[in-house]
Structure formats: C-alpha cells, structure tokens
C-alpha cells in the first residue's frame, strides 16, 4: 500500500499536486496489470517485471484521469504485440484477420481497464476519460513507470502526472 508521507517537503509544497511516486508504488501498478492480463488474456499469462526494448513501431494507448490527481495512464507495446493481445482478448471470437481498428480498440480497452483500476487507488473522486491511441505522449519527470515482459515481448505502463511536463505535443 502506498501512503502520503507526511514529510516537511509535502507541507512546503502543499499547493502543488502530489507526486505520482508518492501515490502509487511499482508493485501496485504491476499487480493491477497482472490481474488484467490473468482475467482477460489468460489465467497463466505471467508478466515478468523486466525491462526489454520497445520496438521502433511501438504504439500507445492512454486514458486521462482528472480529479485530485491529474494525468494519464499509458500502455505502450510493439505493433505485433498489440495484434497478439487483440487476438488473445477475443479468443474464439477473433476474426481470421484482425483489422487495425480492432487492434486500436483492444489496446485502448486495456488502457481503460488498467487506468480505471489505477484511478481507484489514487485519491478520488476522479473522472476517467475515453481511451486514445497513437504515439505516446512524452513522459515528464513525474512518472511511475513499470516495464514488463509478456511472452518475452516488452510492454510498459506509465502513470504520468500532468504537472511538471507537457502531455500532448
């Protein structure tokens, strides 16, 4: 569990929003993602907490969280990883050819599921935005990032505070 540490630092900066690293730890983010994978992708789909390299054609999906904490929850992985994830999500309901629209939709939905659960750990109440898909908004210094391997392929989840760094462009 994460808690706000009542340090002198926090008192001094009480009018600036709390830093994400004080609000959520790596283990909590990892367990949220693992639960999403176990339930939606497959019971035995283990995510290994190791950094890999993201391929050049990496895609991201993200959702905004607006409330006492403001920022985005971003999921990033390679294009082919995203396609496999879509196929695994749909399982026997997957069409023979997965269209780009399905891949984007699936990736967005995974960000939504992870984002909703991250939001519930942060101070609330807050609102969750609709998923967006594209190239990742640049992360600022106020970021809690978790690198994972799924079937040997890397994916990253980052929870990025909107304070301290520009989000889009």
């Amino acid at each position, binding site marked *: 569990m994460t808690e706000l540490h009542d340090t002198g630092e926090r008192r001094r900066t009480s009018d600036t929003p709390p830093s994400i690293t004080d609000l959520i730890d790596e283990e909590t983010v990892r367990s949220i993602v693992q639960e999403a994978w*176990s*339930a939606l992708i497959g019971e035995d789909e283990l995510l290994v907490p190791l950094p890999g390299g993201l391929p050049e054609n990496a895609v991201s999906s993200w959702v905004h969280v607006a409330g006492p904490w403001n920022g985005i929850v971003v999921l990033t992985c390679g294009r082919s990883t995203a396609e496999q994830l*879509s196929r695994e999500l749909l399982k026997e309901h997957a069409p023979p050819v997965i269209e780009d629209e399905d891949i984007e*939709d*699936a990736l967005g939905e995974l960000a939504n599921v992870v984002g*909703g659960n991250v939001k*519930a750990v942060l101070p609330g109440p807050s609102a969750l935005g609709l*998923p967006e898909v594209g190239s990742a908004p640049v992360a600022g210094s106020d970021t809690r990032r978790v690198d994972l391997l799924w079937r040997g392929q890397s994916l990253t989840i980052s929870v990025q505070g909107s304070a301290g760094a520009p989000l889009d462009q």
Partner: protein
Amino acid sequence: MRALVIDDSRVMRRIVAGILEDLGYEVQQAGHGREGLDVLNGGWVPELACVDWNMPVMDGLQFVSAVRSNPAWRQVTIMMVTSESEHGQIVRALAAGAHEYVIKPFTADAIRDKLALLGLLPEEVVL
C-alpha cells in the same frame, strides 16, 4: 433470454456478448447509451442490459437513469460492466438503479456468478 451489451469498445462488446451467448442468451450490441436506448425504443426490451460507464454521447450512468425513469422498462435488469472501481462510483450506480456491478477486468465465471445471483442464468446451464 435476451441481453443488450453496451460498450464503446467493440472488442469488449464481443467478449461480453460471447460469454452471454455461450450461456444461451440472444444478444444485441450498442456502442453507447443513446444507441442502447434506441434499441429499447425500437421495442427490443431485454431481460438484461450489461452497460459500460465511460462512453461517448451518453454514458452508462445516464443510460441507467433513463431506463429507470421509464416504467415500461422495469423488467430490464441492469448490470454495470466497467473499469470504474471507486467505492463511491459503485454506490452511485446502484443508487441510480443498477442491480449489479462487475469490475473490469472480469472472467467469464464472474459474469456467470453474478447472473446466478440475479436469477438470470438460463435453466439449461449446468453449473
């Protein structure tokens, strides 16, 4: 039995619809609350509606309120299926008239367990 699945993600719609169809439901899908209301207004009034919360045009909470304000749709049991998982949000959805709440991520078993609670498991399904 009939079920309406409302979610802006078509992948998620297919997953939920697939689970319900496997249980013997006849399913229609809608991409947001307004589309869902259109289905009901068209005369297709199901026993069950599975509704996401965050959607464009009309969100799940507005859909729940709209359905509950029409006595003709009293028979529709509403189950939220959403990644909104704050305690207070679940309270709001129940207060608005949703009967059950499934938090994403879920498994097929979770949907089945909830339907059993609601008495909405088709008879022929053997546990």
